């Protein structure tokens, strides 16, 4: 909860600073505008689709090569037995947090401005999770036995070990994915219905019709819809906290210097939401531009997002400080070596400092109010923070492993071309999914915007 309250704090006083919507359009017009992209493909979209498509094929290639040959094709070694796969996993999971946070948290805290961006955020969550789910599977030495992590009555008469974090990991991620999917789909229903009603051509109308599950906008529908929506929101909210807490246990239950730390769960959750917001910004700013949605995604949204970023940044900075302080205070020579010596001055020091710049330095620009509403600044900051958060995971995993207890077994890690292909490929895959989303699904919640306009009218009247 630390995350949410802190996130609220800066948002409160400036509530009236910028209007949530620049102008209040009527429902008809709103619907037509927001559904238009579904009927009219743009050349830009086609190009991007081709690019990300190729990237996805690269991913497929690299993955099949890995599965066929063995993960020896990666750079991993002993001591650095975990590397890119786990870094990417944690990174994507983290990004996946913002969606539910925005939808669920902000819904429960009745942040009305969320209406314009929650659908994008939720979709982003799903796609991020789909990417994340790829990696734990892929990084197994024998992926075809992944199901041994699932508790089921096997002919071997043995069960998974529940003291390990990994089976819980699998459970948490799956649960999170399912809930997020339902939440997203439920929110979509009314808009799918509108799409069905407006779609040109019978085929499309039938397709949208099937997914609209016969939504007719009857009072009963709306009533049950509201109940279910709030219910799911309530269900999703604790998951936002639990998932990355459990992911953090993958590290903190180990006794490795740099991993064995009680602050990890909250620290990871904060980091996750932080990177998630960054990703949301990186996505909505181009959308806003391309589809000319300046009046729906307004300075208010940018300003709020920027403030949230700043708040998260400071929570993260706090975690960094505590981590390093405890390392020093504990007097544990191994912790001290990793935190005070190897990370800041060792072989990977330059990555460490880039990370600090991106995660700690960059967001400070949001103390300036003009920066908070400048799309380019926000976009750039978002990119840098995403990079920074990826590096954070690299630092945590690789530096701790490469220089642990016995100097005799110290060794460095270097990625191979396969590692890079998989990383790049997964980003493309994410982009591909997101493009499909923009093309075939109403990517801004029409019905919620309508509600919002109505409320605002009532408010102004």
């Amino acid at each position, binding site marked *: 909860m630390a995350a949410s309250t802190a996130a609220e704090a800066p948002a409160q006083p400036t509530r009236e600073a910028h209007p949530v919507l620049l102008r209040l359009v009527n429902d008809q017009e709103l619907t037509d505008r927001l559904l238009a992209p579904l009927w009219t493909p743009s050349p830009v979209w086609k190009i991007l689709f081709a690019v990300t498509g190729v990237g996805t094929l690269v991913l497929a290639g690299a993955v099949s090569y890995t599965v066929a040959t063995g993960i020896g094709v990666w750079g991993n070694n002993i001591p650095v037995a975990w590397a890119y796969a786990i870094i990417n996993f944690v990174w994507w999971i983290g990004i996946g947090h913002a969606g539910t946070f925005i939808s669920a948290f902000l819904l429960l805290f009745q942040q009305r401005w969320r209406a314009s961006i929650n659908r994008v955020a939720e979709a982003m969550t799903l796609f991020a999770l789909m990417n994340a789910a790829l990696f734990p599977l892929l990084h197994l030495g024998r992926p075809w036995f992944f199901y041994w992590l699932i508790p089921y009555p096997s*002919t071997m*008469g043995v069960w998974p070990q529940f003291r390990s974090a990994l089976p819980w990991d699998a459970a948490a991620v799956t649960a999170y994915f399912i809930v997020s999917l339902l939440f997203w789909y439920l929110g979509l229903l009314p808009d799918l219905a509108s799409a069905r009603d407006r779609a040109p051509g019978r085929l499309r109308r039938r397709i949208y019709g099937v997914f609209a599950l016969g939504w007719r906008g009857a009072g009963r529908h709306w009533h049950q819809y509201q109940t279910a929506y709030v219910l799911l929101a309530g269900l999703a909210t604790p998951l936002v906290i639990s998932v990355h807490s459990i992911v953090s246990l993958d590290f903190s239950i180990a006794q490795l210097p740099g991993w064995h730390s009680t602050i990890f769960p909250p620290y990871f959750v904060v980091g996750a939401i932080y990177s998630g917001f960054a990703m949301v910004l990186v996505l909505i700013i181009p959308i806003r531009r391309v589809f000319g949605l300046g009046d729906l995604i307004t300075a208010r949204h940018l300003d709020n997002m920027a403030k949230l970023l700043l708040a998260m940044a400071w929570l993260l900075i706090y975690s960094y400080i505590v981590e390093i302080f405890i390392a020093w205070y504990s007097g544990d020579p191994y912790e001290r070596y990793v935190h005070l010596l190897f990370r800041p001055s060792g072989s990977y020091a330059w990555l460490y400092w880039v990370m600090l710049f991106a995660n700690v330095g960059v967001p400070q620009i949001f103390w300036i109010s003009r920066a908070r509403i400048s799309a380019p600044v926000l976009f750039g900051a978002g990119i840098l923070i995403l990079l920074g958060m990826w590096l954070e995971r690299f630092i945590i995993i690789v530096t701790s492993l490469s220089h642990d207890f016995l100097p005799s077994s110290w060794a460095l890690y270097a990625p191979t071309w396969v590692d890079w292909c998989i990383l790049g490929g997964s980003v493309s895959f994410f982009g591909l999914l997101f493009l499909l989303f923009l093309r075939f699904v109403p990517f801004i919640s029409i019905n919620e915007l309508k509600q919002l306009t109505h409320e605002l009218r009532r408010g102004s009247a």
Partner: protein
Amino acid sequence: MPALFPRSSNTLIRAVLGVGVIAAVGVPALLMVWVRTPPVTGQHDAPRQPVEFSHQLHVKGFRIDCRYCHSTVERTASAGMPSSQTCIPCHNQVWRTGPLFAPVRRSLASGQPIPWVRVNRLPDFVFFNHAIHVSKGVGCETCHGRVDQMARVQQAAPLTMGWCLDCHRNPEPRLRPVSQMTTMGYRPPSLQAQLDEQLARTYHVQRLVTCTACHR
């Protein structure tokens, strides 16, 4: 505007959803059942052998003890497969000619071994030792079944790890006096319970469930 969907589509979509839910639960369940069935475990699998040797005839008919052919069962990990020579002491008296015995004669003549087909196969990471099981009062029958009733010998047990563990976790009920080791259709005397414990004590039988007992 004509209706987009016929009335029936409501039922249809409900049905589809229902099936989906059932499949989500049912398919894994079915899989779990399936892997326990003979086609997968190979239980009751009785491959055709190069020699139509009938255990039924030799064990039940002639009362030949298992150890006459599987001679190392009490001493070594493997029970031991009989050499072609082993048949001769009896078969130069009886049945020396005849098509059934021909492969053995050929083997003896050519010096080429008889290519028996393995019936009870354990994976290579399982290190099973006949001698120790036998000496602890586990009879042949316990794992190999009523060989005396098998015209063509077949895999009696599923040979899954779970099956091994059933006994390793609770060996007592499966024990018998070593003297009864090769007996087929062994009937424990009444008061089995006491006998179990007594046997377990005399043979120092342990509940051996540590992994390296079998996996090394």
